């Protein structure tokens, strides 16, 4: 359950940063990304997947959230 710092970059894409792992990746897709629902599975550009508890509104980026790692990864 890593803490992930999320922010939007200049192109409006979600940037994923895990301080402990120096992991800085752009998110390819977010499962739920509408004004009234946000979260679910997030696919990163390096192929790894994380899961966020869906919430009923868009979080106020940048924000730190807890994520679950879905695949075991490298």
């Amino acid at each position, binding site marked *: 359950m890593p803490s992930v710092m999320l*922010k939007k970059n200049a192109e409006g894409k979600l940037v994923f940063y895990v*301080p402990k792992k*120096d992991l800085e990746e752009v998110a390819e897709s977010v499962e739920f990304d509408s004004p009234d629902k946000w979260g679910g599975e997030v696919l990163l550009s390096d192929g790894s997947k994380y899961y966020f508890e869906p919430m009923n509104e868009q979080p106020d980026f*940048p924000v730190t959230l807890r994520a679950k790692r879905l695949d075991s990864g490298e």
Partner: protein
Amino acid sequence: MAALTKEETEALIQEVLEVYPEQARKDRAKHLAVNDQSLEKSNKCITSNRKSQPGVMTIRGCAYAGSKGVVWGPIKDMIHISHGPVGCGQYSRAGRRNYYVGTTGINTFGTMNFTSDFTEKDIVFGGDKKLAKIMHEIEELFPLNKGISIQSECPIGLIGDDIEAVAKKANKEIGKPVVPVRCEGFRGVSQSLGHHIANDAIRDWVLENRDGDETFATTPYDVAVIGDYNIGGDAWASRTLLEEMGLRVVAQWSGDGTIAEMEKTPKVKLNLIHCYRSMNYIARHMEEKYKIPWIEYNFFGPTKIAESLRKIAALFDETIQAGAEKVIAKYQAEYDAVIAKYKPRLQGKRVMLYVGGLRPRHVIGAYEDLGMEVVGTGYEFGHNDDYDRTIKEMGNATLIYDDVTGYEFEEFVKRVQPDLIGSGIKEKYIFQKMGIPFRQMHSWDYSGPYHGYDGFAIFARDMDMTLNNPCWKQVKVPWKTAESSNVAVAASA
């Protein structure tokens, strides 16, 4: 010597690794790589931020060095107590050349050494009482100090002193910020964790001090310069450019900085990060908590300066954008003259770097402006995000080495035969004795500043002065005796 191809570079790495025992070889192989610009992510080719192998000569420092030496030390109006035995503070005293304005010992304390000077008694019975006493002594002797930070050395963590409790009590009694920093040297694998711990201490003990206090008059053009340690006056050379383009620099972190500036930083509109490695943590925190965006910039060499000035200006309105263009135009004649003078003397020379923080990638542009080429680079304590940023800056098939050992560095140099090496004091004399021009790129070899347009002129002069110094012809290298050169002549005949 011609540049090495990718295969030759890979073969060189294998050759150098051969002397290690199997386990060490396997580990070290992960830290050496041939640059490939097509890679998006560095973790495919290089491992970093790992514990150094026992038995090799690493060039790294410790967490205390990262906190006291880098992040906290330059804050000039605070007193930084090196809490523990006397050596750590004394041997690192004033070595980093963080310049500042003020009267040392009266209202600024940058080059002084304050220590609790632990003896056996303090290790056995604990040093908290002594620490409390020291802080009152400091208050009496140096009443103009604006705060105290407690920089832990190894024994503090080992004997379990409660410096936080002492700090809280002293804070009430003195009425000034007292910041305990848990930067014991044994923490982490290098000074990098010390930076992180120091950043966290700033976050927890300093940054919130003026939350809810709106008395500070802000402007839309307020920025903070973060991660510039004013080595030889670097931050001043950077600051003038930012001010000339119309921005207001509210805070300098931490070269020539004050605690008041740090407390005001949450009020700025944009954080400018020079040393990403040591201060990105606090920038990310401010982005989340105060919604202050941050960007990285690079003030080494005119190409990168112009790029950075435009990048910064793009985040402001047209007056600042026009200001940036004005600044670039204003200095053009100056830096064109520098390039015209030194480029012919330095063209085509090859450089190997091994430093820390931001320099292994940031100075590449400055060398390229002088027609020089960086053929090898590496970080003492970089993380993978540093190497991500380095891959694109370096040419293909160049060497990248992480936490290089003394042996590897020497072997690489013998084979690559660079014209100039930029590294630290521990490497300087080895390479000078090998007859290779050397610049100390941690403290600019007692010169500087190197940032900004003013700094570039000094940088170019220094590189020329070192590289084209006639003394290198006089150096007798043991393996280049008359005998061996006769053999070489015979072989080439």
